[in-house]
C-alpha cells in the first residue's frame, strides 16, 4: 500500500487513508523518505543507465520482482542481524546443554572413580597433646643412645656438593649396594 501510494497508484479514499496513517507513523514516513531518496539517486545516476541500457533493464527487473514479492509474497519479519545471530547462538547453546550430563540423572551415568579407592582409610589416632606424646617417647628413648634432636656437624675437610635431585630407593634394588 505504501509503495502504491508512493507511485501515486491509489484512489482518493485510499490515498487519504494512507496519509492519515502517515501522520501517526514515523516508520512509514521514514520508508517514504527512503523511497524518495532512492528515486533522487536514480535521477542523478540517469546518465549511467542511459549509457548502459542493460543495467537499466536489470534494475527495472529487480524493482518489478521486489514489487511483486511485496504484493504476493509471504509476510516477512525484519530482524536486526545482531539479534538474529544472538538468537542462533542461544539456540545452539541450549541444544548443546541438552546433551551434557548435567543433573542427577545424567551424572549417574558417569564412571565413579571413588568406588575404586579403599572403603576406609587406615589411620592412627590418639587423644594426646603434642607435649605429652613427646614426653612419652622421651621416656622410651631414655635407655637408648639418641641424639636426633641435635644438629650434626659435617667435617669441614669433606665439602659436600649437590649432584642432582634427592633420590630414595630400596637398597636391594640398587646396583652396587653394599
Amino acid at each position, binding site marked *: 500500500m505504501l509503495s502504491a501510494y508512493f507511485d501515486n497508484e491509489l484512489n482518493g479514499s485510499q490515498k487519504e487513508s494512507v496519509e492519515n496513517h502517515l501522520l501517526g507513523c514515523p516508520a512509514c514516513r521514514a520508508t517514504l523518505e527512503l523511497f524518495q531518496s532512492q528515486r533522487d539517486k536514480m535521477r542523478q545516476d540517469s546518465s549511467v543507465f542511459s549509457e548502459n541500457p542493460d543495467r537499466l533493464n536489470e534494475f527495472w527487473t529487480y524493482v518489478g520482482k521486489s514489487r511483486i514479492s511485496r504484493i504476493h509474497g509471504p509476510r516477512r519479519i525484519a530482524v536486526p542481524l545482531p539479534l538474529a545471530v544472538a538468537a542462533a547462538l542461544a539456540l545452539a547453546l541450549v541444544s548443546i546443554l541438552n546433551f551434557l550430563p548435567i543433573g542427577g540423572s545424567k551424572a549417574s551415568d558417569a564412571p565413579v572413580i571413588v568406588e575404586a579407592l*579403599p572403603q576406609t582409610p*587406615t*589411620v*592412627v589416632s*590418639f*587423644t*594426646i*597433646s603434642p607435649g*605429652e*606424646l613427646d614426653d*612419652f*617417647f622421651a621416656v*622410651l*628413648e631414655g635407655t*637408648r*643412645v*639418641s*641424639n*636426633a*634432636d*641435635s*644438629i*650434626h*656437624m*659435617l*667435617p*669441614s675437610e*669433606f*665439602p*659436600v*656438593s*649437590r*649432584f*642432582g*635431585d*634427592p*633420590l*630414595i*630407593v*630400596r*637398597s*636391594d634394588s*640398587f646396583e*652396587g*649396594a*653394599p
Partner: protein
Amino acid sequence: MPLSAQDDSASLNADKLLKDALLFSVDVDVTSSGGDSQLWNTRVEKITIPGRAVEVSLEGDDSKLKVNFTLYPAEDGKLLLVARSETWVGGEYSSALSSLPVAYRDEVYYYPLGRAEDGDDDSPVEVRMSINVIPYLETLDDAARDALESAFNSSAQFDLSGEDP
C-alpha cells in the same frame, strides 16, 4: 559416671601406643664419590608413630641439610615413607618431597643431594642416609618387653586431664 568413660576421653591407652610405636633409625654416611669408602658417619635413632616426623639435620662449612622423614600407614601392612628435604649448598636452596612404600626392616637409601656419577673422581663427597624401620616392641628382648608392658599395662593410662591425681 563410670570411670572408664572418663578414661576414654581424657587418657591415652599406652598399650595401643606401644603397639604402634616404631624404631626409626637413620645411619648417615659421608662417603667418597661413588660410595667406595666411608669418610664419616653418625646414627640417629628415634621412636615415633605413623604420622610423626623424624628430623635429621646436618651442617657443614658451606652447607646445611634438613630432612624430615614421616611414615604413614599404607595398604597390605606396609608404610609409606615420605622424605621432605631442605638443603642449602653453596648458598643455593632446594626443597624436595620424595616417597617410597616400605615394609618393616626394608633398608632404604636416601640421597638428599643426589648421587655422584660413577667414576667421577673429581666429585666431592656423597651423603647417604640408610633408613630402617622396626616395630619398637620387636627391638626389645623378652625381659625388657615384659618390664615395659607391666609398667604400661592396659590398666595404666596417662591422665591428660591436667588435674592432679
